[in-house]
């Protein structure tokens, strides 16, 4: 089961600042701050233009980056968290 397809919040709505190994994101529409580590910035980047479900996204990330422990279930869980935070939405 592929699960829902997600799109990321447009990059112009997010201010991103690197703090050492972590990225701080300010999401303007919600006025909230999120602290995220890889692969979240990569995920948000990937989902800018094209809606993808967890499987498609995993394939995309594996093509682009070196992904350790490629696990669709945990990716699906991350996507659900990002949706709850408002950083991605069901397309």
């Amino acid at each position, binding site marked *: 089961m592929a699960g829902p397809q997600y799109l990321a919040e447009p990059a112009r709505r997010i201010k991103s600042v690197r703090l050492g190994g972590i990225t701080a994101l300010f999401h*303007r*529409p*919600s*006025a*909230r701050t999120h602290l995220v580590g890889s692969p979240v910035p990569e995920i948000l980047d990937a989902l800018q233009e094209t809606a993808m479900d967890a499987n498609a996204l995993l394939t995309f990330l594996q093509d682009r980056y070196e992904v350790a422990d490629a696990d669709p279930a945990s990716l699906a869980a991350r996507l659900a968290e990002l949706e*709850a*935070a*408002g950083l991605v*939405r*069901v397309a």
Partner: protein
Amino acid sequence: MSARLVVETLREPARCERYDAAQWNALIAAARAEQIIGTLACRLDGLSLPVAAKRILDDARALAEVGRTLALWEAEAARRALAPLGVPVLLLKGTAFVAAGLKAGVGRSIGDLDILVPRGALDSVQDALLAAGWEWVKPDPYDDAYYRQWMHELPPLIHRDRDRMIDVHHTILPLTARITPDADAIIADSEALQNGLRVPQPNDLLCHAAAHLFADGEMLGGVRNLWDIHCLLEELGTDGLEARARLHGLHHHVMRAVRLSHDLYGTDIPIDWRVRDPADALFKRRLLARDGWGRVRPKWIEHVFYLRGHWLRMPPAMLARHLWTKWRKGYHPVG
């Protein structure tokens, strides 16, 4: 009475250019107590103000701006959670004013999100919200059968991550058992916003505001409620208001609210609505009962007034360290 100072300044902003420090202090304290300082700041924008007053009002405006963002995001989060249900979701009160770009929303501070949904959809709305991260404020709402049966809304819900409350109504505030606003008509005649959320049509916004104004016998927040009504009347007019008010059984209250708005804020209303009703004076007195320290005077009952709509929440542990209030049993979010 400094609530009078707030009213007069809102009505005629240029007066403040003649205020001395004592009047400014009284105005600011009363405006904060009435939760209308953001609106006041927008009204006074551009006038010649003492530096200290301008700073305070600029801060109030900035605060209202962030508050507006947070409130609109709550509405968006609710929209995303409820969209799959396909039921009409109406924004009410401050969030409605702001989302619809109405003058009543300018500088407004907004606390909880209030929405109206069809009564039949209550259960599925509740389930969708719970699935999307909202939680009951009170631990055992199902024990509170009274709440479900008699109240016009679900027991309060709060979002576990964002820590903001949502009130889900299925009708607008019924004032007595004999007054039953027509919730179906409100929903049927509502207007759609671009994002799919809806707001009540203008006369229903007015009827709701009027019902709300008189719901609290002490008229706490009355200065602001009445200002909302004034702004709505000025922007949306009075066509069809009487008929709509009669439909909801609220004619008496709406007419009183309109008269008070004319009296206090100088709202332009039809001549034949400007009748003299002796009870108006009593309501006016209650509305204006704040002194130069923002206290309600005279005090008929013991109460501690608090800022509703104050959306900033401190972690309880941190607040305790700041304030050493070990005696507190439970922390209630302010607003």
